[in-house]
């Protein structure tokens, strides 16, 4: 009996080892990973826009520096993730093209506008907070390069969530206007951040196969619950209320139970009808097209240099 690539793949998965780029893998596994890693990379990059919107207006020099460093980290995360996707045989340019033409998605959360400085706090606390929960689980994903990218990224993410919470903490100790600004931000970002974990398990089309392949290790609903449980007490510490009248603590299970998520809104945003869906992509495409002459020049120069070397 000969051992096939498939046998080896299944063994790797069963043993909780990592699949590496040169290993045989099923087509579906490769495609799922490309889709997921690309979507993750795009999210890091598109996510620079809503926060970038406040860098020029940050209220203090210190806050400006911290926010700029944070957004810069996100660009770095985009790079790690595009590199991880490239190990599966696609190029960064191809993936960016799929993003620009709407054929690949990014996290819907970034289609919401940042309307006040408090939104920057809410994003760090809730959006990066939710991303961390998701990414910690992905550190044990079965594809080696993706898992390793997650380990690097998670190291930086805790700083992101802390800077967000620190912005809110300052607001919570501030004036009435500052506390109102904070509450308004929580009212707008709470539900979208819960939607970041994706549709409920019962409706999630990709979950089952992804769990079998150990791409996904924890389900959407489990991750969402984990996030709610860690976040609600932090919100209480800030003195904010969550815009969910059904939010209650279940003594029996020790979990915070949330009300119904508006999945119609979620699907509308996923399908491209988010508040700023068109603007986000338009801005990205604009930057890409404006930069075409620069990329062409860099390529042309590199060719000239290598010609001069061989001449």
């Amino acid at each position: 009996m000969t051992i096939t690539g498939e046998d080896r793949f299944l063994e790797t998965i069963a043993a909780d080892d990592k699949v590496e780029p040169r290993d045989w893998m099923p087509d579906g596994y490769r495609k799922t990973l490309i889709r997921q890693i690309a979507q993750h990379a795009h999210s890091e990059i598109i996510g620079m826009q809503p926060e970038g919107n406040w860098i020029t207006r940050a209220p203090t020099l210190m806050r400006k520096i911290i926010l700029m460093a944070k957004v810069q980290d996100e660009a770095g995360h985009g790079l790690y993730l595009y590199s991880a996707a490239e190990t599966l045989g696609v190029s960064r340019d191809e993936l960016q093209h799929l993003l620009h033409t709407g054929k690949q998605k990014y996290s819907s959360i970034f289609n919401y506008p940042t309307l006040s400085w408090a939104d920057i706090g809410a994003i760090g606390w809730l959006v990066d907070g939710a991303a961390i929960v998701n990414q910690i689980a992905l550190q044990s994903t079965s594809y080696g390069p993706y898992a390793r990218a997650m380990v690097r990224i998670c190291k930086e993410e805790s700083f992101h969530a802390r800077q967000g919470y620190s912005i809110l903490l300052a607001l919570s100790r501030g004036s009435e206007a500052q506390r109102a600004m904070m509450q308004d931000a929580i009212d707008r970002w709470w539900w979208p951040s819960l939607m970041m974990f994706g549709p409920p398990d019962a409706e999630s089309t990709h979950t089952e196969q992804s769990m079998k392949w150990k791409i996904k290790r924890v389900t959407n609903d489990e991750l969402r619950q984990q996030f709610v449980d860690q976040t609600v007490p932090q919100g209480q510490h800030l003195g904010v209320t969550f815009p969910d009248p059904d939010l209650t603590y279940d003594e029996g299970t020790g979990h915070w139970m949330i009300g119904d998520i508006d999945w119609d809104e979620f699907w509308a945003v996923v399908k491209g009808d988010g508040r700023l869906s068109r603007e986000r992509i338009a801005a990205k495409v604009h930057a890409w097209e404006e930069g075409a002459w620069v990329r062409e020049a860099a390529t042309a120069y590199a060719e000239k240099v290598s010609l001069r070397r061989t001449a």
Partner: protein
Amino acid sequence: MTITAIAAPLLKYLVRLADDNLVLGQRLSEYIASAPEIEEDLAVANIGLDHIGVAQHLFSYAAEVEGEGRTEDDFAFWRTEREFTNALLVEQPHEGFGELIARQFLFDAYQLELWEALSRSSDERLAGIAAKALKEARYHLRHTSSWVVRLGDGTDESHRRMQDAIGAMWRFTGELFEADDLDRQMADEGVGVDPTTLHQAWTATVDEILAEATLHRPDDPYQASGGRSGMHSEHLGHLLAEMQWMQRTYPGLQW
């Protein structure tokens, strides 16, 4: 809040140095998520962060020198256009990546010489800030020089664009090397440097890189001036309006 007139020459000198860095850092921060490549978003943010960091150090030193309880943020957010003493070059907006690089390159080449000189300042605190900034300026200049060369000697289009971009920024370079009474006093005391003495080295650097980039040095005889005495272009007011908006809308709060 009462903003007292800046009196002591050292204070004035530190604020002048800080203003260049803050305004340029603010300009660079506008560019986030607009670069031709992700790598360049990272690099521009990095350079911007360095400049704002230097401004922060200089302002907090200035606040100590003044000794009236002002903070770095008071200097950044509570002065008007006429009180800012940055050079005109750094407040110029950039139309695209070419102009951003041109402005940065011409300024990096100046700051390299400036920090080199100031790292030998008799004022230890200033010398320390300059020594750190010098290391950063070396990296900035290496980065922007490599772009000037690639864009100048890339395609016909990039050559034309880069030549135009250098041309657009050129008339703001002369001011960097003008000395006023404050510069001369600071230089005499061994604290500062006379900017006229930096011009030759700057010219050599710029000429060398422009030649490698197959670009020519613009021959525009007109050179604008006035930033050091608060006579700015119309651009600075808008930059400040955006940057100072939070502090001015919600005065006196902690963030």
